[in-house]
């Protein structure tokens, strides 16, 4: 029983609302609009402008290609275009948050990737007898990376770690399947020192 309502909740909890970018853009636009209004009122009252009269500003903008150095014009235009492109990407990209949905019967559950990683690392460390701080686990949207640095002379069976990690991930019942990658790191200097 995952109702449309719960599907909607999960969708909202696992994707960024883009509120920060929205707030910044709207705040900048509000400041701009208020500034333009102030300049227009000052121009109406025949008072000196705060910075520049609106018509003079537009004239400066129109004359830019001829007046400003070419490099400055190109650079300025490209910076503005880059900001625009970035906003378009923010608007279109899904903005997935680093969380995984897990099966919870009729209810829904969402778990931070960091929590999943910590749990996996703890379990791997307990099972193969390697210190917890020598096991690094990264959980991403589609993959899980397990890195074990057992230290010099301590044998670790890679297939054992892989099957252990796979079993543990299967037990978590993630809604989206992930690929597991296991690495046994044996830095040269550690080996030599031993």
């Amino acid at each position, binding site marked *: 029983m995952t109702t449309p309502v719960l599907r909607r909740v999960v969708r909202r909890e696992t994707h960024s609302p883009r509120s920060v970018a929205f707030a910044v853009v709207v705040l900048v636009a509000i400041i701009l609009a*208020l500034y333009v209004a102030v300049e227009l009122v000052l121009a109406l009252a025949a008072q000196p402008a705060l910075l520049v009269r609106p018509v003079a500003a537009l004239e400066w903008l129109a004359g830019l290609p001829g007046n400003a150095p070419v490099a400055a014009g190109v650079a300025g235009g490209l910076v503005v275009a*880059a*900001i625009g492109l*970035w906003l378009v990407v923010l608007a279109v990209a899904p903005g997935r948050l680093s969380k995984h949905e897990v099966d919870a019967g009729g209810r829904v*559950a969402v778990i931070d990737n960091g929590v999943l990683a910590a749990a996996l690392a703890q379990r791997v460390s307990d099972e193969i007898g390697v210190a917890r701080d020598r096991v690094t686990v990264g959980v991403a949207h589609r993959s899980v990376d397990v890195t074990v640095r057992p230290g010099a002379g301590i044998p670790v069976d890679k297939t054992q770690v892989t099957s252990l990690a796979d079993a543990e991930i299967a037990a978590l019942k993630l809604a989206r399947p992930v690929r597991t990658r296991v690495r046994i790191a044996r830095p040269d200097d550690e080996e030599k020192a031993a």
Partner: protein
Amino acid sequence: MNDTNRALNRTVLMIVGVILLIGGGAAATAAALPAVGDVWTSSGKAAVDALRAAGDATAIPGTALSWAVIGAAVIAIVIAVVLFASLTTLVSRRSRTVLRSSGSQTPLGRVTITEGFAADAVKNSLAREGDVVAASVTAHTVRDEPVLHVSITARQGADPRRVVDHVDRLMDGLAAVTGADTAAYISIHGGLRSRFASDAARVS
């Protein structure tokens, strides 16, 4: 979970982004290519002249005022106000959500269960759970349906599957007690709080 209008957020970002992209691209091209620069300058001059003409045409006789400038100022202020109003959509409105109300047909009268009851029940049950550092329960109304949100900060290294199953059973119990199987959403977080919490008791 809040009422933020995400479609609005993304639409505004899209519109502003496209405007900046086109404007910036045009300015860069105009600066780089003299031919395009001439078009930019001549059309810009034409636009400025048109604005001047509009200002002169609507000048109020006997004063330095002109209706076009007054109108432009009013439009700028209205835009600022509308934008400010759109910012308030970011602030979520929360009201006390009623999980179940029996109406008044029972012999006892009306029975109403609010989120506070569910929150206390779940929090007390989770207080003894070693894997849970902190828990909070809130109720929201999503599309006119109450949804309980159980938010849990798990202890570092805790098995989230166990926590989820435990909460799931708690919610089953709550449903049995209240007679309303409210839709529930469980979220498990890590973060600083779980990192700095003491290790779970080794003997239990």
